[in-house]
């Protein structure tokens, strides 16, 4: 963890005031994976109190994967420091199973590199554990809707990854890498420096929904690139791709 502070409110397009959000809330099924019993229980209690259906908990990596595949929750709230498997491995296993479960990372001290790995293989949000309760609940709601939960810290990581890919392709003259459009870069930079979607929308004279789309696109490009890389690697090694 190099960022001393990955803070600031997660951006939640639509927000809890959206009619669908409220209607779906009682049906949202959540699985909590954390090796610290106190956190696991506190998080599960907060979720139940807020009307979510906590379908189960897990205290290690393999357990988290097993239960996610068996229970198929809408959202998996995942601590990155689980015994048995790395957070990225858990994410990858869940994404590979091609179920509808979305992964929200909730971690106390994860290395930024680990967070980035997990986001690249398919997690759709990252929140630090010191985030407030409402902030956390909003993030779970957003994740359940399929929206990316972008803190400034996560935006900085994603932006940094695209910069790295661009620099790498420039140096090696390598095969195509995904690029952000100028607008996407601009939006991501503004998210990374603490602006809300609404503020960005006003600043750029676009709707905050458009801002949300831009942000979502950057994450999709990263996921797609990761998948393409995996396939390329597998072909090079002569492996079969599941799915």
């Amino acid at each position, binding site marked *: 963890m190099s960022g001393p502070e990955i803070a600031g409110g997660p951006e939640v397009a639509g927000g809890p005031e959206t009619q669908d959000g409220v209607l779906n809330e009682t049906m949202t099924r959540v699985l909590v994976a954390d090796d610290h019993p106190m956190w696991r229980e506190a998080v599960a209690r907060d979720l139940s109190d807020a009307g979510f259906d906590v379908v189960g908990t897990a205290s290690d990596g393999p357990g988290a994967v097993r239960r996610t595949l068996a229970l198929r929750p809408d959202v998996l709230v995942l601590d990155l420091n689980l015994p048995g498997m790395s957070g990225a491995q858990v994410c990858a296993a869940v994404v590979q199973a091609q179920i509808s479960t979305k992964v929200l990372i909730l971690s106390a001290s994860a290395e930024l590199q680990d967070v980035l790995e997990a986001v690249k293989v398919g997690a759709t949000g990252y929140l630090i554990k*010191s985030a407030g309760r409402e902030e956390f609940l909003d993030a779970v709601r957003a994740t359940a809707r399929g929206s990316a939960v972008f803190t400034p810290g996560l935006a900085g990581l994603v*932006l940094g990854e695209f910069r790295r890919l661009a620099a790498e392709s420039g140096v090696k003259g390598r095969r195509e890498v995904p690029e952000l459009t100028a607008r996407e870069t601009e939006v991501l930079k503004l998210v*990374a420096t603490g602006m809300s979607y609404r503020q960005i929308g006003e600043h750029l004279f676009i709707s905050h929904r458009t801002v949300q789309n831009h942000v979502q696109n950057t994450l999709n490009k990263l996921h797609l690139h990761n998948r393409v890389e995996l396939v390329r690697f597998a072909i090079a090694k002569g492996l079969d791709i599941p799915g």
Partner: protein
Amino acid sequence: MRSSGQERQATAQAEPDAEPDARTEPDPQTEPDPQTEPTVVAALWRGLEVFRPLAWLYALYSASARHQDMARPWLAWCVLGLLGAWTVGVGLYRGHRLTRTTAVIGVELALACGAILSTRLVDTPQVILGGARTLPGLWPAAAVVAWAVLKGWRAGMLAAFLVGVADVLEVGVAAQGPPNSSTVNNIVILVLLGGCIGYCADLSREGHAALREALRVQARVRERDRLARTVHDGVLQTLSYIHRRAIDLGGEARELGSMAAEQERLLRALVSTVSDAPGPGGPALAAGGRAGVDLRSVLSRCADGAVHVIPPAGPVLVASGVAEELAAAVGAALDNVRRHAGADAQAWVLIEDTGRDVTVTIRDDGVGVPAGRLAEAAVSGRLGVVNSIVGRMSDLGGTATLDSSPGAGTCLELTVSKGWPPSWTDQHP
């Protein structure tokens, strides 16, 4: 909470002993283990195993060439037969730990000396004084090399000295006078051989031991890092948990909660700086001060409750001077935010690595500056802080741009090359 604590403690107690090598480590006092001998020493042993039979064959050839001149040829065949049996025996066990013990190479040295002395009985004094070779020829050198390889340069030279004494006795007693120059010459060469090979073996053992020690220390440090991460994770969790509960409880607990939150932030900053700093001998050190500072560690010191530093996942290595200037510029900008942006203003410091350049964006959500006021301030010379930042950046060959509007805070973007600017390299070697 309690059960979690106990689990952690149990892990912490179980792990530090988990050094797989520690128990199989050979005791330095005992004979060196052939399995863990350095490559150079192993090569010397293998060379010796080849040399010994060749030297014996040469001794056999020399003896057969002059057996007509011998006083007691049968004794020569007996002695050579004994040496041959020894050579074959040691050859059969080659590479075995047994052939590399003091006892075995002691017997070998005794055989060598005995064979040299037996030349006195085999040859007539005239032949010996005529400069004939000793019966074992080069074979005794094997014993000298064995002592040098097993016990180092002192033992090598001592063994050579003993062989030399046997030589002198063999020649000297027959001649009733000082040994001739070729004998002395051979003895000096043998002593030097023992010393040199012994020194070589000593050096490679020392290097090997140092390497093993370094690897052991590295493994221990890595293990400690891993434990520290687990402990930090636990402490950070606990602090955030206290913060969270304190908010629920309200009242005086809130104060405790904010203390916990502050400590959590400090610990997080500390852990991140420590774990990001490249270890000794890392790439940063190798590159010298020129391109070796991780800007993330430098700027993360600016973070506090109202300032969020947003770094990329990988290190952002810049020249140390560039890091200092950027840190000073960011510090000045944040001071400005604290003074002018309002009490509740927060600031974000985004670090971007764009390949050759690095960009640092400082944005606050404070009151901002009304349009036109900036230009007005510039004209009246009241843009002190901003001017100093712009000055610092242009000294480095970089740029600084300021953007502000009322109610939307202020955004300052600094872009600079990661290496030393060419004009600086002359002045700051």
